[in-house]
Structure formats: structure tokens, C-alpha cells
């Protein structure tokens, strides 16, 4: 299966949850947040959020802004 992370395709060998994928991709700390298919996923729900083939993830972090 594959998911799209910030517009880039990521191939997954087996089904996984959001928490494991984030760890696998190297995201740590608390300076990021996630939306799955356009909807916000609270940090507390990462572990119970199963990923499906074709899911699109947005992982964002603070940037300067006006």
C-alpha cells in the first residue's frame, strides 16, 4: 500500500498506524501537527489512527507568517 505524505508518495510494506509512520519518517517532538485527508488528527489519536491505501497526510510545522 502507499500513502501520500506532504505530496510525496510513501510505500508501506504493511498496514500501519499514524504513530508508527510518524516515528518511521523521523518526526519527533511537539512542533508539528497532522491532518489526514484534510481533517485534523489530534496528537492523542495517532496510535489509534489506522492508515489506508491512498491516504493523504499533511504534516505541518511553524513558519513565519504575516
Amino acid at each position, binding site marked *: 500500500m502507499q500513502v501520500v505524505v*506532504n505530496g510525496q508518495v510513501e510505500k508501506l510494506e504493511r498496514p500501519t498506524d499514524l504513530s508508527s509512520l510518524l516515528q518511521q519518517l523521523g518526526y519527533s517532538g511537539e512542533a*508539528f501537527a497532522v491532518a489526514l485527508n484534510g481533517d*485534523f488528527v*489530534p496528537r492523542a489519536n495517532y496510535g489509534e489512527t489506522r492508515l489506508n491505501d491512498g491516504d493523504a497526510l499533511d504534516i505541518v510545522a*511553524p513558519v513565519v*507568517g504575516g
Partner: protein
Amino acid sequence: MTDLLKLYGTTFDSRLLIGTALYPSPAIMRESVEASGAQIITLSLRRQSPEQQQGKMLWDYIRESGCQLLPNTAGCKTPREVIALAEMSREIFLTDWLKLEVIGDDYNLQPDPYGLVEAARELVRRGFKVLPYCTDDLVVCRKLLDVGCEVLMPWGAPIGTGRGLLNRYNLQTLRERLPDTPLIIDAGIGAPSQAAEAMEMGYDAVLLNTAIARAQEPVNMARAFRLAVEAGRTAYSAGLMLKRQTASPSTPTLDMPFWQQADTATQE
């Protein structure tokens, strides 16, 4: 003298809000924020890979700054995008405050009034303190108040144009018709004189970014805007004189030398 800005129950000494973008360097951004005296700063969220450390570095600075954070939803075009980004902002920045942007036109970055009202209604329901970037349309502004916004941020001119207060009539109307609503001019301010003008009109504060960040010396320009906002506010509080059509001498005319009554002159 206490002349505090009160927004959503929180008071601030400074009436200048500034953005954190477009500065030549992070160091100049920090110095400019300090020089401006701003106590509210805007910032945003964007996609980032774990290798990029800007997010964490920015976050570390922001936490140290002690400023009220005002995350924006810049670039969002639909209420759905806004809601997701707002929730992500609240989780990261640990604040309910939100500069709501729903862009309706890519060319002049004009707010979409319909999307704005719809998004604001839902955000208020979710407990956000919404500061909408809106046009200077009285009816749209009233709708935003109706759905629970307590602060409005009408544009002076399109973002990044530096053209100042393009529609003084509308802005004056907003001020007069919404006397109890905190009103902040957001966007389009290019020079300190324009910020002072907004404050003299009775606006509660000014939010800007480009005019400072794109100045040749941003830190000095931040200071200039600080002084201008203070001057404009002080002038408004002091009460401006009324304009007159005809001249009126300021120097006393009584006992003016060289003047003779007409009949005296005739007798000579």
C-alpha cells in the same frame, strides 16, 4: 496613563501587531519585533519534513518572546481548510487565538466574505478567539460579529501593496457604526504616516508585516511604526480639531501695528 488595547479579555500596552515573515534574517526579525514593541505577533504553519529544523527553531524563539501568538490561516480558500489548519495551530501553539483568512481571489488576496462568515461561525463554536481579516464592508463586518467574532480586522489595502487606507469612507463608516468593537487595520499599510492616520481615525490597532520587513532597515522602520502608532493614538485621544473651509488666523489680530481705522486715515 493607561490606554490599553483590550482584545478577547486580554489587555496590551502596544497597539501595533506585526508579522514575522519576509525579514532578511531571523536575527533581524527578532530585533524588529523588539523594536516595534509589539506584544502580538503573527505566524503560520506549512508542510515540513523532519530534516527541516526551521519549525523548531522558530517555535523556540517564539516561546521565549513572551508575545501573544496569532497564528494565521493564510492561503486557505475554504472553510474546511481553515478548520483543519486552525485545529493544527491550536495544538502546536497552544492558543485559541486565530487570525482568520479565507482568500477569495488570488490576484489581490481579497477575503471571501461568504467563506469568512461560515468559517468564523464554526471556529467560534469550537472555542476559537477569531480575529478575521476582512474587507471594509459594513454588512460583512456585522455578520462576523453576529456569528461571535469580538474583533474585526478590515484591510487598508490588499496584502503587501503598501498603499495605505484606500477607502477612508468605508473605514470611517465602520468606526462610527461599530463604536464598541475593537477594529484593527490589517494589511496594506506601507508607511508610518498611514498607520498614524488609521489610529487618528480611532482604529484600535494596526497589523502589518511587509512595510517593516521589506524596509531597507527593518529595525529602524519597526521603531518608526511604533512611534507613529503611539502618536496617532495619542492624537485621537486628544481630539483632533475640526476641518474648516476658510482660513482663520492663529496669531491675535487685536492690536496689530501699522493698521489705522479707515476714518483716521482719511483725516490725515
